[in-house]
């Protein structure tokens, strides 16, 4: 089932008394972007260099990679089940800034 994730402008709200207090809150007015999945789950942790686990740096990098791979897979599953997944159309990002100043 395709789900609707528009902001707080749901139709039901229009037929009921408006609520706008800090305590009860108003529905969050922010679109959820599709969750993009990393093609290299351990890239960020690898960028930090070898973990400071003396004498076990290599084992740590290996174990971290396994855990990161598994965690990303799990997050992907969760996102897919909630229909929040999406990696775009496969084209790489193409934005070019107007100026670099």
């Amino acid at each position, binding site marked *: 089932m395709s789900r609707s994730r528009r902001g707080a402008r749901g139709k039901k709200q229009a037929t009921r008394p408006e609520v706008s207090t800090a305590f009860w809150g108003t529905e969050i007015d922010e679109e959820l972007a599709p969750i993009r999945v990393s093609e290299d789950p351990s890239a960020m942790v690898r960028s*930090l260099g070898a973990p400071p686990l003396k004498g076990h740096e290599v084992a740590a990098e290996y174990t971290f990679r396994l855990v990161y791979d598994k965690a990303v897979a799990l997050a992907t599953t969760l996102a897919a089940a909630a229909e929040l997944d999406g990696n775009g159309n496969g084209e790489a*990002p193409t934005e070019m800034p107007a100026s*670099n100043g």
Partner: protein
Amino acid sequence: MDTAGTTAIVDGQVVDDGTPANAGTAMAVDGLEPTTVAGPSSGPRSADDVRAESALARDPGFLSLVESHAWGEADDADTEVLEAQPGAWRRALLDLLHHTDDALVGLRRGRSADTAQAIDDLEGEQSRLERVLNHLLGIAEPEVVAPAQPSGPAGDDAVIGPVALQLTWTDRKLVAWAGGPGQSAVDRRGLDALLGSTAAPAVWDNRGPVQLPDGAGRSAAVETQVGAVLGWLLADCTDTDVGGLSASARWLGHLAAWGVELVARGAMVPHVRRIHRKSRQKPSYVITWTPALVDSERLKRLADAMPGTVSILSPGVDAPTVTRAVLAEVVDVVCRDAAKRVEVPAAPPEARNPGELAESLLAHLDGSTFEAPAGLVGDMTNALDRWSAPVTGKTYHPLAVQLDPPDSGNAWHLAVFAQGPNHRLTPVEVALVNAGNSRREMEANLVRLERLFEPLKRPGSLRRGEVVLSQPEAWELMTEVGPVLRDAGFDVRVPALSRHTPTPSLRLWAEGGVSAVGANQLADVRWTAVFDDVELTAADIRRLAAEARPLVRVGGRWVALDHADLAAAAAALAERADRTRMSGAEMLRQALGLDGSPLAGGISISGSGWAADLLARASTATLEPAADPEGFTGQLRSYQGEALAWLQFLEATGLGGCLALDMGLGKTPTMLAHLVATAGELPALVVAPPAVVGNWASEARKFTPGLKVVVHHGASRASAESLAAEVDGADVVITTYSTAVRDIDALEKITFGNVVLDEAQAIKNPANDTSQQLRRLDSRTRLALTGTPIENGLGDLWAILDFTNPGLVGPRPAFVASLASSGDGTRDGAERALRALNGILVFRRTKSEPAIAAELPDRIDELDHCSMTPEQIGLYQAVLDALVTGATTEPGADQRKGQVLAAITALKQICNHPVAYRADDGPLDGRSGKLARLEEIVTAVYAAEERLLIFTHFAEWGVKLAAHLGQRFGIPIGCYHGGLSRGARDQLVADFQELEGPGALVLSLKAGGTGLNLTNANHVVLYDRWWNPAVEDQARDRAWRIGQTKTVIAHRLVCPGTVDERVEEVVAGKRHIADLVLPKSSSLGDLDPNQLKVALGLRTDEVLTEGPEPIDAPALAGGAFAEVGP
């Protein structure tokens, strides 16, 4: 512990009846009297009770009561029934609400006025159902609660909102309760109902109630771990179509989605946390997973939007802290779960040194506790925090990596920038100087970047953070490394690129200058290779091929060319380097792929000249259907209009072509429209099989009555000497293949505007006499009509196209080889090959094209006129002669009547085939015009991989016919007739209905004409005629009936000038059976010999013959085949 309503185990399944745990007396709402409901508080219920309640809730009668009550239409008795079953009532209301919600979700996607009305109706229904349910559950409706009752914090007095499911964060747990602005506290039943209606999983534990602000009471509450409801938070709390959820639930759903998003990017780091347990001597620790690369602006936005209800149980904790805590919990939950699924070496029994502590840490990434000396852990914790500090700061500012397009020297410049306020970019080396307190973090992130993209560390760079990349490095950054850098927290800006691999093709530039030159005029040409829209010369290709990663810019995006494609393009250009002059015909063949195409994209022609102009015109010729021409009284379908536009294109360019419309798509009227549009100075010659000559004449009368049509066929046709005079003044001359060949000496002296070969597969053998002789015809344009242009192979098509455009398509072997490479030998492959020529030399449309099928009627009836062989004519005349002779000798009217009827049957059999009248052991081939026509139909049907039914009312003939066709086409054919057992007949029908691919079934009209369902066929041939049209209609309706998905084409075969045609006249309602042979007020026995001859005899001017000689009238009179009788 499951507390959401009463739960029972039924057949091993957990059944939640949605009933609140504490049913009681509901409060009065909106004029409804308080309703005392007997809930589970009256005692535990058995599984049977739950089952019975569920069943009742689904009972249509009970549901009807529930709906009537909701609409205010229930009387007291109805209400009593409902009140006696409160559980079922609530369940039915919930079910109805779910159905209504589902329907609303679907309808809200629509935008029409009808949809809007339906939504309004459903929302009204939803509102009524909710009102009753709330009443039953003791939930006050916002519309009727007195606004004077304060229930929220100061300043909220005037605000009233719906009761919704609230979620609160406290102590790493989620607490659920029900409430809303201006509402009183909600008890456990109301909470459970809300949890159920929002599809929350039943994983909640009891906890103390939540105290509402300003003394509004205490709402019942339950609690659970985030991990237990993470899927629900993600799926339902972010879905605005799920009702009953408060702003706090939506907010937590968004935060959960962000947490999962971070994990999906790999943005988390391990952190060691101490667990405070006073009773233990050694401290315990756990690994928690902390979010990294947190966007501080997004965090602030979410913290600002946090409803107060989220932290109602944590007064004094600020929103950013709660936001970070929830985000961290979500990340930690997912990562711990992941770590549990990874096998790691076991931890040492005791961590006594840094090495053992490291082992312990790696063994406890799943969040399980471990013990270690505090001093050791402190050092490691500090080291880990320093290690991860670049990505865990409260304000993470990503460095920007920018790749500029290459300069003229093909150098790609990469620079790293720091992002300042308002996203202003500063070269990182400059920014580092001015970074102040953030210098360490910026420096650390630059080091991270350099680790992931090593060219940045290359010695000799311009300055730190700037480097010139080679083309391969640039491509790597754009395609592979860029996304990795982005996941690692950098802002990557690269030129637009496409992963699409351009298709290479060759372009032939014609530089003839004058476009009026013809197919044989030579013109200067040059060649280039084209990759999508990028044109490359041989020199360009050499340069690109030398690069490790050849990049070109296509449509504003950078794409990488394939080295193999470049090599192929280079080879193709080299091969054609010497071909600098070509004729228009050669160029056309190149463009059509008839001279082979070395590159996947084929060959296109640009520039000027005959071929380029021709192709340019062809590309637009059929975009718009031509209007029905003046003088054409029919209405062309759109594809026929397109065909007419294509014929006009041929006329304008002087090309010939093949109109290859599928059988039944109306080739004849389309061509007549063209002939009437081009009528004038020169006549047109239509050459057709004898079976369709009559059809051409009648269609011409029907669609183009203004055309002067001459049928040049038969014994009475104009002699060679008078042919020119006959043709003079005619618009269309119709003749048969055999007549045209016979009279070719006379015909070749006439210049025709168009020569049209109908059923042009007749010339598929270019060596036979017909093909050779017809090439002698003088015509401005040659056109071919066929539904099966590739009957046996591509050679058939070559023969047709070489006739229509002599020499243009080149030699046969090259033509076949080129087109065969685009097909695979199957029918689809042949169709693909045809499409290569479609719109230029061929106009192909098939019934299987959806746009065509949509225009077709569901049934097409065709009348096919068939020729008679000399053997048939002789036999026919002999039977008639015997009858006439008997008329003078046999006494008795009744006996005479019997003889006449028997003779009619015999004559019909002879029209079918001589063997149908008088069995012999000879082959069936070549002895019957009807059989020849049937074989043409079978060929076309089989070529289309379709199936047909053949009806005859002579069962014995049917058996022979089936055997003959089976042998002739190599596909076994059954014959369904009354002599078979019921089982055998049923099996025949079942086998036929399961057939895939080409097939046929012969049926006797009597046994198979009614009752059968044979929708697997979409062609029906009525081989011989029956007096009653209803019988024929019933036979045809075996295929044309419910279940048929294709247009059914019914062919009726008739031999003109014979008794066969007189039956057709009866069937068509033009005369009565009695009128056939009887003058008014006569009986069969009264007919004299002359009357019999008139009634049943051959009308020599109408009889069609295929043979070289006309019907010999004297021979007929004398009875060439005197031996008569079965």
